[in-house]
């Protein structure tokens, strides 16, 4: 009997190799159909009407002028909001569905909403704006430890609200046919998408709602639910009896479809002269808009600093609500903690790497699979080698002449990444074909490819002989893709299902080869006797033995059991180092190089795994240098709800990137662990530390735009 475990390194034909994603060709040729691309016969286009005020009473909504326009097929308004308050700009009030997109845009402009504007509050930079009691936690005696500390370093740092800016906006196509609802949403949550809100909007039972998402253009944590636009789209389909496409326009996408909370902090660090941390204290404030939490688990990674305290003050602001943003709260906490630590090293005139290594003792050794201190030390050393730390490092402030100053900085991070609950069906047919089906989704991570790799590896077949079907809620239920949980979940469920069909197949062909099923293995497109590979039959011949009907088995990942069995686990770490150049005359920061060293257990596809890390580095560079949702305090509106002024990195902004994955003994044997979140945590922190190292002074507020760098230089630092 083949067992449900991971093959030993020398037995892996596909797992852990660099394999191109299976859906690469359809994506590269434009053949992949995303939700936004679904064009149904008789399709209508919907546009939304939203509040231009951050806070106002809605007096009335008049859809009449829109409804009477030619081409307009339906209007919708939120009667429940009349006489009530809207409390962020972008809040949806009405909608229109029309025959063409242009007609819908024009009709939406004719819907008249009368408002009574009310006072609003969109700032997040003053703790006095917070509501409720601060959330306070203290270990040890911080005041006492700071009073006794040989060195105390004060810092004030901030990291702003940023948006997800998914290139495919949120939205969906809906269609009602024969009393059933068909939805093509852009979602991270295929199996869990069809919730009660859709059933209520259409009076169609949840089990008559069909979800299909084959390709989706980015989610990053913001696309789990139906959302108001989902129920509006479904209601418009019900009203008109026609398919309706409702995708958010870019401005709305940036205003209301999720964001990452800000974090400002006043931090005090106590240390002894030899560089040992003795205390850390932070008052943290920020906003998650109208809803959601702000970062709180401070200090980050170095959780065992003997005396530590944090006081959290959440500011509710009249802005769109936060949503999970890739590694929720970790990048902010990492930036606050690593900045404070680097500033302490600088104050002590200690090498930053020596300082980090010395204080790894304050990391919980139980973290990250139980070897956290050792692994971080190893990862920092590898990162140092890759970036040429010894040759390039200097104490804070590049003393070289000229306007271009160079600096290095670092950060470390942690993440869980345990696989979610997942079910998968694998079917083998008498003609030898293989199909895996599961209600999962591929956000661009390579999830589809990895299922194929696991099934093909299990059955001893090439990857292209396995057809992977995902993206429909008719398929076996698999968890939403959040928190780096997909790879662990789907790898186990698909391995189990493939092993189960294989075992049945081996039992059927064993008599023909004159051995017990246990003596057989599936390798290289054959079923063969492990001890005597010359005794074999081809995969196709073997499958012919299953009879006239295909054979299907279901695999089920129950996370707790799979952890016990060593198939999956959680807790990974990574170290990153940045090498930057800063022009102290213009304030422009250039990334020379960014290095990531990352562990994540057993890697299924090294190529797409590395892509996750490269991508995370680039997202991190973007947040370090460019991204910020800018709000106007007077109007309460987001000023840069577009892609011209809400700036993403371009190809010329990213410098040289190096990725090193920790693999082999000590890593592979931890089982499969998720990777989507962890590498996006450290880049901003490492880059900010590198900038401080270059210019000799902390530029404490992200993003590190030229004005902020110049402002920091005016307070000190190196001269040109």
């Amino acid at each position, binding site marked *: 009997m083949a067992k449900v475990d991971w093959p030993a390194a020398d037995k892996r034909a596909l797992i852990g190799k660099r394999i*191109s*994603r299976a859906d*690469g*060709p359809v994506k*590269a*040729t*434009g*053949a992949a*159909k*995303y939700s*936004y*691309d679904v*064009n149904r*016969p008789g*399709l209508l286009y919907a546009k939304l009407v939203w509040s231009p005020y951050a806070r106002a009473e809605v007096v009335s909504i008049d859809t009449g002028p829109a409804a009477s326009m*030619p*081409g307009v097929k339906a209007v919708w308004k939120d009667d429940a909001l009349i006489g009530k308050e809207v409390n962020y700009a972008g809040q949806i009030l009405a909608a229109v569905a029309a*025959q*063409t*997109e*242009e007609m819908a845009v024009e009709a939406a402009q004719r819907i008249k909403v009368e408002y009574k504007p009310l006072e609003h509050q969109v700032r997040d930079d003053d703790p006095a704006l917070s509501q409720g009691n601060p959330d306070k936690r203290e270990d040890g005696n911080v005041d006492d430890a700071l009073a006794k500390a040989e060195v105390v370093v004060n810092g004030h740092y901030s990291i702003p609200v940023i948006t997800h800016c*998914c*290139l*495919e*906006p949120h939205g969906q196509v809906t269609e009602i046919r024969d009393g059933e609802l*068909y939805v093509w949403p852009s979602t991270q949550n295929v199996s869990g998408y069809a919730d009660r809100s859709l059933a209520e909007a259409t009076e169609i039972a949840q089990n008559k709602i*069909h979800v299909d998402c084959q*390709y*989706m253009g*980015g989610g*990053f944590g913001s696309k789990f639910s139906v959302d108001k636009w989902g129920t509006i789209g479904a209601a418009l389909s019900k009203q008109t009896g026609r398919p309706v496409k409702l*995708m958010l*326009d*870019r401005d709305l996408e940036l205003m209301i479809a999720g964001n990452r909370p800000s974090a400002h902090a006043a931090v005090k660090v106590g240390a002894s002269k030899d560089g040992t941390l003795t205390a850390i204290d932070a008052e943290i404030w920020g906003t998650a808009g109208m809803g959601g939490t702000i970062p709180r688990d401070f200090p980050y990674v170095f959780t065992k600093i003997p005396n530590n305290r944090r006081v959290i003050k959440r500011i509710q602001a009249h802005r769109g609500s936060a949503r999970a943003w890739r590694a929720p709260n970790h990048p902010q906490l990492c930036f606050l903690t690593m900045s404070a630590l680097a500033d302490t090293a600088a104050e002590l005139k200690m090498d930053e790497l020596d300082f980090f290594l010395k204080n790894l003792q304050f990391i919980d050794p139980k973290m990250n699979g139980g070897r956290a201190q050792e692994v971080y030390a190893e990862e920092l050393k590898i990162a140092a080698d890759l970036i040429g730390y010894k040759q390039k490092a200097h104490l804070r402030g590049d003393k070289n002449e000229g306007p271009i100053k160079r600096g290095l900085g670092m950060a470390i991070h942690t993440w869980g990444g345990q696989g979610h609950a997942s079910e998968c069906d694998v079917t083998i047919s008498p003609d030898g074909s293989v199909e895996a089906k599961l209600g999962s989704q591929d*956000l*661009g*991570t390579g999830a589809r490819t990895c299922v194929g790799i696991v099934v093909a590896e299990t059955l001893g077949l090439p990857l292209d002989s396995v057809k992977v079907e995902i993206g*429909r809620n*008719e398929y076996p239920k698999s968890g939403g893709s959040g928190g780096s949980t997909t790879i662990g979940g789907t790898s186990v469920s698909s391995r189990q299902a493939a092993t189960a069909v294989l075992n049945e197949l081996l039992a059927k062909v064993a008599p023909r080869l004159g051995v017990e099923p246990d003596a057989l293995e599936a390798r290289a497109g054959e079923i063969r006797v492990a001890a005597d590979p010359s005794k074999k039959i081809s995969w196709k011949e073997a499958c012919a033995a299953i009879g006239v009907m295909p054979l299907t088995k279901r695999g089920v990942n129950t996370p707790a059991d799979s952890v016990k069995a060593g198939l999956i686990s959680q807790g990974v770490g990574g170290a990153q180092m940045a090498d930057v150049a800063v022009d102290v005359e213009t304030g422009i920061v250039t990334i020379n190089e960014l290095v990531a060293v990352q562990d994540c257990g057993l890697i299924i596809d090294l*190529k*797409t795994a*590395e*892509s*996750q890390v*490269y*991508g*995370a580095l*680039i*997202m991190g560079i*973007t947040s370090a240098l460019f991204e910020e949702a800018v709000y106007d305090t007077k109007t309460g509106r987001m000023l840069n709800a*577009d*892609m*011209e002024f809400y700036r*993403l*990195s*371009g*190809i*010329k902004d*990213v410098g040289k*990137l190096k990725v090193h994955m920790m693999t082999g003994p000590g890593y592979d044997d931890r089982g499969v662990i998720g990777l989507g979140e962890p590498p996006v945590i450290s880049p901003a922190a490492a880059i900010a530390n590198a900038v401080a190292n270059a210019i000799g002074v902390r530029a404490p507020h992200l993003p590190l735009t030229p004005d902020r760098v110049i402002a920091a230089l005016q307070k000190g630092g190196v001269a040109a």
Partner: protein
Amino acid sequence: MSDEIDSLKTAGLSRRGFLKGLGVGSVATGLLSPVSLKDALAKEGGVVGPGEVSVLLKINGQSRKVDVEPRVTLLDALRNRLDLTGCKKVCDRGTCGACTVLVDGNPVYSCSMLAIDAEGREITTVEGIGTPEKMNAVQKAFVEHDAQQCGFCTPGFVVACTAFVRKHPNASLDEVRAGLGGNLCRCGTYAGMMLAAVDSAKGGA
């Protein structure tokens, strides 16, 4: 349940069904019968619209007639009228490049060009550059170097990169960085893209 899956699949995207629903090539909206762009320009002394006009677009080597109001962008004409959805609508104001197509061989943001202005020009969309079975050198290199994740920016990059490598055979990394500066990616696929662009520039596209 399997019947439902099948019906979802078969009713799934039939291009013919979609185009029929839209009435491309006939009177789409029941408004006045559109005149051709040429006639409209001649008759109205250069003023076209606001009603629909009939435009003949040369796309991927084929002539396609489409009735559009003058305000319709080339992007929306391609995506909404002709079901050529490879070009994506992302920023819709000439910043991100996801809607890039070739017009007379040059990369153009199709969100920033009106469909009526594209009459008589040679338009090439990503669908005209290659198919999954027969990719061009750029597309092959994008797959090989994993220069894509969610893939939503990819068609725009592939079109821009194809135009770039045709003009800059043997381009250096620095030239690639400058040449692909008109497109944006959110997932962060630039590392693979640089390799893909340099690679395909060697072979030509």
